[in-house]
């Protein structure tokens, strides 16, 4: 995937594909309001796999603390958007 600034919709779509592939979720479950732990059953071990995978989108290593306060799918999109705005050309 080419790395440049993406819209929130594109980020959400990428996240949706990733979550479906990694954790066998249904695409319609992955909505911005969905809580990662309570609704999508993503635990701390899954989070490690997810962060590794999201590296492909941002094009650089993601520090786990970036996602420390992340609770919902929307929060992940926010964090990714902020990360890529910080470093668009990486």
């Amino acid at each position, binding site marked *: 995937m080419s790395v440049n600034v993406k819209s929130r919709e594109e980020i959400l779509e990428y996240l949706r594909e990733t979550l479906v592939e*990694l*954790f066998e979720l249904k695409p319609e479950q992955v909505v911005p309001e969905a809580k990662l732990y309570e609704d999508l059953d993503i*635990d*701390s*071990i*899954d989070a*490690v*796999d997810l962060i590794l995978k999201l590296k492909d989108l941002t094009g650089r290593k993601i520090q786990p603390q970036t996602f420390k306060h992340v609770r919902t799918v929307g929060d992940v999109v926010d964090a990714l958007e902020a990360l890529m705005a910080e470093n668009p050309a990486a």
Partner: protein
Amino acid sequence: MTTVGRIINHAWRVFATGFVFVLFGVGALFISLTVFPVLRLSTRDPDVARRRIQNGMQYTFRTYIEIMRLLGIMTYEVHGVERLREQGRLIVANHPTLIDVVLLVSLIPEVDCIVKRGLWRNPFLRWPVIWASYIPNSEGEELIEGCSGTLKKGHSLLVFPEGTRTVPGRPMHMQRGAAHIALAADAELLPVTVTCDPPTLFKGNPWYRVPARRFHMKVVVGDPVSATTFREEGELPARAARRLTQWMLAYYAGTESGRPSRAAHPEKAAEAPVPMASAMS
């Protein structure tokens, strides 16, 4: 039993249960300061010491269980105990009572356990858990590495996949850690079903609220299942761990009524509930 007899029996079991709780605490401290240091010093080889201390744990817990039986608090029966003694298995059990671990360890000469990491700060109890090479309940990856490491060395490990005692009347909920451990170590999973009748010492039930009659614990050891059968080629463990956890939930849902393991009887798989069918497909 007459009414008076029942009242006396009830009062006796409240007293005896309290006595056993105090004995557990005092006994653990006493043994940690006497028997375990002697066992540790009985050899230079830490691995031999580990085995001797784990044997010591078995005898200690066996003594506790026999004391409870002789005091008239409980009875118990075990089916398939020989399978618990085969090494290198991930032994998983459901967790109805506070004393499941005591009963299970009393049946197994050598088994690693996951123990509250707070014990590593306890001046007395930290040494036995270190010498027995028990595993602290750390978080995520670290715990899985510690646990799969000991399985790869050929040791057995006892895990309660629910992570805490079962809440009666609620559907069983499991963490996926046990599945991740089994997959990381390519281990065989040995499912064990523990039941307690009448229910007692369950989550939220104080020790002094003893059941109407002495309780009976039953341990049924199932057939081993290889974790690798849940894993597809080139797949991330996250998906396989979900399937294996689903399988365990279905296993416990199906064996609660005392039915044998379906995994051992493929011909019965057709009548299995949906989660099982999807887990096996």
